[in-house]
């Protein structure tokens, strides 16, 4: 029984400015059309249907307005059933002929003609539910620009100040308007740092050893090349305190200038052994150092190939057990001290270089 129903396309329908108006108007048109259909109509003309829907909406608006005014008259903000009955009577007028006089009794069932009529209508007429499922009104626009700011109560925040009520929208988060200096976090890699340090020490050591090699070649020619211990002793104290790789580089330079000294060569190792600074690296390093030192004393040619092997060993990074390491450390320390004493006893003259 669907006749020439008007197109319920919201875009084409009315000249409403807001989107919610178009949607509600279209829904009202559909409802009114259904009511007319129940009355007996088969077809509708679009202007007629639109105007009837408009009248129905105006009826609702007027009813609501009148009802709330009646409620306000008695000092209430919310309406009750009697307000609506009074509004109904006020809107359509009493058939008694009083001419719009609304008495206190007219809100009761006995007196209210309109209400009686409504009751009869409900009892007699067929129930026609709305044909389309209607979404929740009004439709919340989920666009970002229309997003509702939640109130303090909704967030669960206490407003900063007693004068601000809880139902007001909450303040934006401080990070949106405050700029604090950023701490640029550099990932600290202690193991990586130690490895880097050891690598640089090895570099310095390699340079040192190559220099020693050259000196040894010169020694093999017969002259004593070890530097003047007395002259170097003053520097020794300063050098022993510093352990960093950059300074070890400087040490190499100073050695080049002042002459080679076994004490200076061993200074980093001694310092590290004293501080207990770097466990694995130092033990490996001392392992390296010890054979070098011994070979120097035994034969001058032996330590030529060793730095390379030791560097490879470092890359492998064997990790000895801790108790073995401790024993080794003590052993090496003793040996290093022994060698040092021996060197001290035999002063080396580097001025002959």
């Amino acid at each position, binding site marked *: 029984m669907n006749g020439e129903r008007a197109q319920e396309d919201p875009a084409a329908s009315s000249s409403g400015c807001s989107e919610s108006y178009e949607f509600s108007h279209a829904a009202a048109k559909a409802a009114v059309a259904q009511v007319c259909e129940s009355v007996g109509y088969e*077809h509708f003309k679009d202007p007629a249907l639109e105007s009837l829907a408009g009248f129905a909406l105006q009826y609702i608006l007027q009813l609501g307005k009148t009802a709330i005014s009646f409620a306000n008259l008695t000092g209430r903000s919310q309406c009750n059933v009697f307000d609506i009955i009074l509004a109904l009577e006020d809107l359509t007028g009493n058939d008694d002929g009083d001419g719009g006089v609304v008495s206190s009794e007219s809100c009761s069932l006995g007196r209210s003609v309109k209400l009686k009529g409504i009751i009869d209508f409900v009892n007699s007429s067929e129930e026609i539910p709305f044909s389309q499922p209607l979404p929740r009104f009004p439709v919340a626009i989920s666009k970002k620009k229309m997003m509702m700011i939640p109130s303090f109560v909704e967030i669960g925040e206490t407003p900063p100040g007693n004068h601000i009520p809880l139902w007001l929208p909450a303040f934006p988060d401080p990070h949106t308007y405050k700029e604090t200096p950023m701490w640029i976090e550099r990932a600290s890699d202690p193991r990586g740092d130690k490895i880097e340090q050891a690598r640089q020490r090895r570099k310095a050591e390699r340079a040192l050893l190559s220099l020693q090699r050259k000196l040894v070649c010169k020694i093999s020619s017969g002259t004593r090349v070890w530097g003047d211990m007395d002259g170097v002793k003053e520097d020794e104290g300063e050098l022993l305190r510093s352990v960093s790789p950059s300074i070890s580089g400087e040490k190499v330079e100073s050695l080049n200038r002042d002459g080679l000294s076994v004490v200076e060569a061993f200074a980093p190792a001694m310092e590290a052994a004293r501080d207990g600074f770097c466990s694995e690296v130092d033990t490996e390093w001392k392992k390296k150092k010890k054979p070098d030192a011994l070979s120097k004393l035994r034969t001058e040619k032996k330590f030529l190939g060793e730095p390379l092997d030791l560097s490879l060993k470092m890359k492998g990074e064997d990790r000895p057990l801790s108790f073995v390491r401790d024993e080794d450390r003590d052993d090496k320390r003793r040996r290093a001290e022994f060698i040092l004493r021996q060197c001290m006893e035999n002063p080396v003259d580097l001025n002959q270089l």
Partner: protein
Amino acid sequence: MNHGQQSGEAKHEDDAALTEFLASLMDYTPTIPDDLVEHYLAKSGFQCPDVRLIRLVAVATQKFVADVASDALQHCKARPAPVVKDKKQQKEKRLILTMEDLSKALREYGVNVKHPEYFADSPSTGMDPATREE
């Protein structure tokens, strides 16, 4: 005193009937959806959490529309049927809701939706309505 008592009793009866009616409203689903009615009532300032009152307003509006529509239907049926040209085919009166019927029906409710006449239809168009009626 008797009169007062009687009116008191009547009131109680009325109240009982009213509550019964409101309860029955919950069973009856009006054609105009609750959400729509609530939206428009909110526009006019009417605020009530009770669904029964919303339904009461919806039912009242439905009754109003039904009354107007039935009046318009009477007007439509009362109009003389169109001339049947073809004897074989008897055209049934198509019940169409038109502006004319609607304006006639709404006149009784005090609403004037009369369509303005076309300027060229009659010589009296655009003249003063009082003189036109004469």
